[in-house]
């Protein structure tokens, strides 16, 4: 019997919306895959593209960045900057050979526990299909 591949997914969640959204999903007793590890950041604008690369290097199969909806940023515009950066970063990672499907950005507000659970399930499914990421991963 083959064991189904369990991916390692890192989710950078913005403190004000998406992380609270994850809380919402939790308190509402919604289920989402345990493959996702959440790292709380003050704002999606805090996520340096280096973090994503580092995640891949240290063994992540997929990276998800979750922030507030455009216009809702706690700091007014952090997510707009993040958006520009990720438009560039996804294309650039694709260019150096790391599948763009492994990187995803989503807007999830504090009230959207349902969306949070759905996105996580979807993304986990995508990554499971893609299989483990060996590109740019360190060998220990």
């Amino acid at each position: 019997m083959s064991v189904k591949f369990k991916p390692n997914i890192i989710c950078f969640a913005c403190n004000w919306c998406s992380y609270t959204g994850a809380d919402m999903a939790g308190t509402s007793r919604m289920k989402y895959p345990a493959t996702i590890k959440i790292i709380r950041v003050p704002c999606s604008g805090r996520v340096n593209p280096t973090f994503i690369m580092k995640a891949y290097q240290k063994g992540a199969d997929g990276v998800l960045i979750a922030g507030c909806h455009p216009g809702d940023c706690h700091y007014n515009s952090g997510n707009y900057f993040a958006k520009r950066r990720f438009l560039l970063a996804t294309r650039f990672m694709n260019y150096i050979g790391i599948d763009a499907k492994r990187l995803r950005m989503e807007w999830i507000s504090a009230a959207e526990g349902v969306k949070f659970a759905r996105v996580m399930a979807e993304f986990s499914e995508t990554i499971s299909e893609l299989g483990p990421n060996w590109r740019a991963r360190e060998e220990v």
Partner: protein
Amino acid sequence: MMTMTEKMREQVKELFVNNEIKLFIGFEKGFTKFSRIPAFAENYDEAKKMIIDEFETPFLAKYLIRELEEVAAGIVEKSERVAILTRGCDYLGIRRLIVDNIILRENIVIVGIPCDGLIDVKKANKLLGEEAREITIDEENVIAKGKTENKIISKAEVVLDRCRQCIMCEPKESDIMLAEKTANVKKNKDYSKIEEIEKMSAKERYEFWSRQFERCIRCFACRDACTACNCRKCIFDITEPEMLEKTVATSEQFMFHFIRAFHVAGRCSACGECERVCPVDIPLGLLNGKLRKDIEFLFNVEEAGIPSEIEPLGEFKLDDPDEW
């Protein structure tokens, strides 16, 4: 007619006599034939050996950081000035430093040189079939003298690759201009090599870049030569947290090149210096070029190489594209 070198000497003499500058940065002949190296003159006598010609030269803009460090830190008088020979590409570098608040415009005297593209000695040698003993450059042709035969090559054939994609052939603003000549080399934005890589499959792309990056010896020359890399403390030098370990495994190489390229995203002026200094010829221009290309396409920037007050990643528009 006065040559540019003579004109430069005259101007530099005047600057030193009038006590306008404390330092002049230019080029002199290197120890190896045809090599041009940076030269520093603190008085007119030292500047006499300097020359201007069309052989490949290093970039000088980066030296301004070190030379004006004390001025920026307020250790010496604010009025001290440094004069620097500036081609269009150097100008973009200087502009970068000014925009980044590393140096102040009033501390520099820009001595401008119009430029039609510099000569690649390696290409000339290749066409000649041996190492040239002497190379003379005139208006249109390059004459390479070999052991027995001479070869006349048209300039366009041996111009540096990076000069073919030049986006600024003479400095936009200057204090002194050494010649008045609008460049006549055709400048084309050329992203064809990048498009070629884009067309590959993900696996091919990864293999291509792995092969390139594995050659990297991590000498950091690309960082040290780049004017956009002007952080006071570079992330690669910080040990806590250690973003980049000292081992040179493939993953670390990816990490290094990703960080380096992304840190100059939207700030790279396409001068090609990183490619020139690389000892193992990694096509770093293809990384920086891809970022420039995407910035131009995604954010409607006309020319990503020219430094603007607000860089593309430092601003946003509400109608930025939505698909990842």
